[in-house]
């Protein structure tokens, strides 16, 4: 705040300056205190409120968040990488009946050329016949990896969306109504202290039986507890705020209070947590497929590819590197994205102030 912003009465009234308030009239130097222009000017002069500078643009909450997010370079780059992988994996081999631009299928074998060595070369840039190489039955490894990435992303996003829905609803109900819903929720989160998530997920995934949708559903009903706990914590503090009391006083229903007044205030926590759930789901799915409880052949996933070819590491390392790098790239970019979103929604720990 510079000196010009300060209301006049804060200034020292120097003797003899004409402002020492010794004049008989409360409005010094005024000939006609009653004129409207005069009142306006006086209000400005004696107002204790800070004058708003209307020439500067003001931003809504959403705009602020967006601005902060777009200033986070790491998050932007990872968003680019994630979208790139998504587009690459969907367009290259196509999705369902829609064909892609990459001619080879991940299901059909072929003769193994040059020991299945990858033909990708960075300089001169060329893809060659099999950019990621071939596996031992001659299947194109690029197509396999793309299919694996498709499956992993599908599962991760489904788990992210479903578990966020469940977690938000249960967390909000537990925080708002307290009582038995809360008790059940807290004991369920305690359960994951005694049974490791991976172990429970392995058993449930085995029941689900290897299809991707069943697996996604099975994982969703397990991973929502973390988000539910976070939402519950936020709701617990929000429900004591004045605006909730006000809404109660005018007779709003509980559902309206939860969905219209409380949940919009927790949107930051929910989005960030959903992102991190997606990253965790990718790792969980690949670990399960690696152990043999996730996706089963002839379908494929990144974890399954690593599991199938881990013994080939010394002879044909590319069979091991490509799917691993894709898991790492996806998980890393989703995690960075989550970090950027967290900074955007909750800038308290951030260096750039606005």
């Amino acid at each position, binding site marked *: 705040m510079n000196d010009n912003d300060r209301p006049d009465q804060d200034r020292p009234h120097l003797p003899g300056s004409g402002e020492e308030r010794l004049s008989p009239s409360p409005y010094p130097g005024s000939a006609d205190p009653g004129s409207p222009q005069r009142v306006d000017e006086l209000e400005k002069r004696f107002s204790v409120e800070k004058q708003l500078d209307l020439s500067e643009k003001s931003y809504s909450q959403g705009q602020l968040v967006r601005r902060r997010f777009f200033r986070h370079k790491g998050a932007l780059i990872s968003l680019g990488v994630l979208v790139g992988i998504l587009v690459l994996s969907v367009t290259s081999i196509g999705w369902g009946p829609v064909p892609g631009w990459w001619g080879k299928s991940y299901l059909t074998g072929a003769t193994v050329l040059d020991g299945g060595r990858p033909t990708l070369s960075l300089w001169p840039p060329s893809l060659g016949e099999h950019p990621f190489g071939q596996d031992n039955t001659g299947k194109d490894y690029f197509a396999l990896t793309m299919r694996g990435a498709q499956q992993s992303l599908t599962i991760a996003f489904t788990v992210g969306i479903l578990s966020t829905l469940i977690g938000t609803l249960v967390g909000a109900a537990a925080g708002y109504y307290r009582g038995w819903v809360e008790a059940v929720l807290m004991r369920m989160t305690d359960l994951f*202290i005694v*049974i490791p998530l*991976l172990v429970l997920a*392995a058993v449930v995934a085995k*029941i689900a039986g290897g299809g991707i949708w069943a697996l996604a559903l099975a994982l969703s009903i397990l991973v929502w507890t973390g988000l539910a706990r976070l939402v519950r914590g936020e709701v617990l503090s929000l429900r004591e705020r004045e605006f909730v009391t006000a809404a109660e006083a005018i007779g709003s229903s509980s559902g309206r209070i939860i969905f219209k007044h409380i949940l919009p205030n927790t949107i930051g926590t929910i989005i960030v947590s959903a992102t991190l759930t997606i*990253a965790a789901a990718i790792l969980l799915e690949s670990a399960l497929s*690696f152990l043999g*409880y996730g996706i089963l052949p002839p379908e494929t996933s990144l974890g399954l590819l690593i599991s199938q070819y881990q013994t080939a590491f010394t002879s044909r390392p590319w069979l091991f590197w490509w799917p691993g790098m894709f*898991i790492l790239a996806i998980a890393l970019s989703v995690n960075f994205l989550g970090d950027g979103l967290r900074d955007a929604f909750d800038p308290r720990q951030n260096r750039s102030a606005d």
Partner: protein
Amino acid sequence: MLQFILRRIGISLFVLWAGSVLLYILTINSGDPLEDLRESRAENRDQLIASRVEAMNLDEPWYVRYWMWFTGASKCLVLQCDLGTSRGGGDINSMLVQAAGSSLRLVTLATALAIVLGVTMGVLSAIRQYSGFDYAVTFAAFIFFSLPVFWAAVLLKQYGAIGFNDWIADPTVSTVTTLLIALVFGLTVSAVAGGDMQRRLISFGATTVVLFAVVTYFDSVGWWLRPALGLPLILLLSLAAFGLLLMLTSGLRNRKVITAGLVTIAIGTVLYFVVGPMMEDPSWGLVFALAAISVVVGVGVGFALGGYERRTAVWVSVGTALAFGGFVFFDELLRNWGTFVDKTGRPISTIGSGTPGFSGNFWEQIWNWGTQLILPTIVLTVISLASYSRYTRSSMLETTQQDYIRTARSKGLSDRVINTRHALRNALIPITTIVAFDFASLIGGAVVTERVFGWSGMGAMFQAGLDTVDPNPVMAFYLVTGTAAVLMNMLADIAYASLDPRIRR
């Protein structure tokens, strides 16, 4: 406090029981236990099916089978466990004893290492916020977060184990490698030391030169095959440990504490010559007895010389005495490395949780045990290191923004006192709650890691049980890991209560 702990134990036991019911139901419904027999073409197929139904009580409803397991398992309270038999007829009790030892050792070691390293890294990166070190730690933490456990394990197996074994056959370090090691350490130390340009340059230069000289010297005398510390290095390292303890407690002001620590080191040096011959081939009993003697010496010296700050002096001298003893132990351990390498040839094993039929003296047994453990431990530590360092960093940053830290600064306390006495202790409180969750996820990670390294531990037992739809091994796995997790949780709660007095009310 007691009431608090008792209530926590009660809740934990309830959750443990509820988890066992859930896991039992899920496991017996995860498939068809007779699948392999139904598909078989053996002549006595029906008879085999009948006998398996009989053995696994498949004709009983689930609650009867659960009750049978539960009554057997509850005898564990009087130390007479009866965990039943596996589908193949093996006795679960004896399987469990073998498996549990190696797995719990792995998970506990990884937890301890991850807490110590992760908290240290988190605190340092919070103190040097927005420095190169901070960015490096943050980036590394993100990589570790996103690393698939099994992938990292296979990579480490390839480069860590096979690479090291190839190198130890003819251990020399090239000048370029030496320079690289020295530069990396120099950069790290100068980034952590911070300060102005001059201070950074000095710390960078000094570390690089010292490390380069040390590695070159080690290389020229063939230290990699016949390593040892010797008394001078033991003294130097103990002084370093003593310095660290001083930094964390009283600083250099208090002469009495410094005297106590130095006297402890002097007594240790004398005892080194007395005890030395006994350490040739000791037993664990002797080692623990010696550790107890170090503690007694530390308490005695601290009490006698501490003066008005007796408590601090006792802590510092006990810490110094234990550090000195630890280095003596480590020195003797290193001296046996050469014979161990000669015996095994390729020391770091990539498969199995123990060399079958290995025999050697006390130290070689430790090496044998350690070289099996090292790779899985590194994998698990690295994975959970990430969350500890991130949580500690944010918790520490939040704490240092509190008003009482500003008050402490404004009354002129040094950064050291503020960071160690005011900030760190309060920043550690939220960390304790993560320990419980992290321990559970480490057990999950251990299942995967054990598979990559071919251990016949708890993970293999769980997987075998699940693959054959046999609840008994799965429940035995759960009984051990769940109880360990509950104990860990309880330790974390007690740590929480001792750090935060408000909770004891």
